[in-house]
């Protein structure tokens, strides 16, 4: 999937850039964004170290397992392949809670920790597991309780009611999350996205890939 999307984006950018006479800008963007990528990654190191350290403490103390147990009724449905007391569940809960509260500095490290734990259970190391895709859907949809950044912009532009968009944002982002998760769960059954040895869904649907 990403093969086509990535190629499409690069090819369209160059062709449209040439037609629009914007090739110098396209070149500049390529170099600028390459540099930005490294800045983002390096900027993550400290914050990653902090949260991974705290996560490890929580893990050793058994707190992540307690958290996982609390969320079990939900996690069992969303992630049927993941044992309900697996550390992945705890990390995912922390990631999603941080996302909902808009604490993106904490959300990414928890999310990456969760991916690492999910990867331990993944049979095909270069291929996304169903649990990973569902987790990604929870993240890309991501309910936003307080869109702090955009409220800040609205304040600076002298909005008479900067926070007015909180309700609409909660509604829209909740819909996005529900559809992303439902869509992902449905798509995982399609032959095109099926795992090589996904016997569970083949027997359930009574058909072969």
């Amino acid at each position: 999937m990403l093969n086509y999307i990535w190629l499409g984006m690069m090819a369209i950018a160059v062709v449209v850039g040439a037609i629009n006479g914007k090739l110098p800008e396209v070149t500049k963007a390529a170099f600028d964004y390459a540099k930005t990528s490294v800045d983002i990654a390096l900027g993550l190191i400290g914050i990653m170290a902090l949260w991974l350290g705290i996560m490890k403490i929580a893990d050793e103390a058994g707190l992540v397992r307690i958290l996982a147990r609390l969320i079990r009724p939900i996690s069992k449905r969303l992630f049927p392949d993941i044992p309900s007391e697996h550390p992945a569940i705890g990390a995912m809960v922390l990631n999603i809670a941080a996302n909902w509260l808009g604490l993106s500095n904490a959300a990414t490290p928890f999310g990456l920790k969760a991916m690492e734990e999910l990867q331990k259970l993944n049979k095909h190391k270069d291929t996304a597991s169903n649990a990973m895709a569902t987790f990604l859907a929870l993240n890309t949809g991501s309910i936003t309780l307080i869109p702090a950044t955009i409220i800040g912009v609205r304040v600076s532009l002298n909005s008479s009611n900067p926070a007015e968009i909180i309700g609409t944002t909660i509604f829209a982002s909740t819909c996005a999350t529900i559809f992303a998760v439902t869509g992902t769960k449905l798509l995982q059954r399609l032959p095109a996205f099926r795992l090589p040895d996904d016997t569970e869904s083949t027997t359930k649907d009574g058909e072969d890939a």
Partner: protein
Amino acid sequence: MLVIFEKIVTIISVWAIPVLLFVIPVLAFIRKVKVYEVFIDGAKEGFEVAVKIIPYLVAILVAIGMLRASGAIDIFVKLLSPLTNLIGLPAEALPAALMRPLSGSGTLGIATELMVAHGPDSFIGKLVSTFYGSTETTFYVVAVYFGAVGVRKTRHAVPGGLIGDLAGLLAALFICRLMFA
């Protein structure tokens, strides 16, 4: 009611991290965990994870940056405008919607420009504000999360995320038309 809700969530956001940084080490210490040693042990992985995502980030962000710089988004807006008129999405707001899965800062930039032009309390201003918070940046999340564990075959993760983005866009339009139009 909105004000009370906002206060509560703001208080939680302010307190959440300090409380976590306090409660976790203290509870662990009570449970006889060697907190300092364990912290160092966990923190060591930070560098590795951050460096691992660089190639994935470069691939995605460069492609998105080039696409933005080429002016291709404007062409998509023109192509899609008959469709968006049909569902009552103002043509001016469409670039913000198209940018949302690609770039958070790009969406913020477009939304800010639109609010300067139309006013933050205009329908378009409120609509693009809602767009901004309606979803996360799908391609960024996919690149970083899968990059960190070296997954290259993303299967249905991208289409699933894009379904969410489309749902977020339509839901934002629906609720804003209901409440603000």
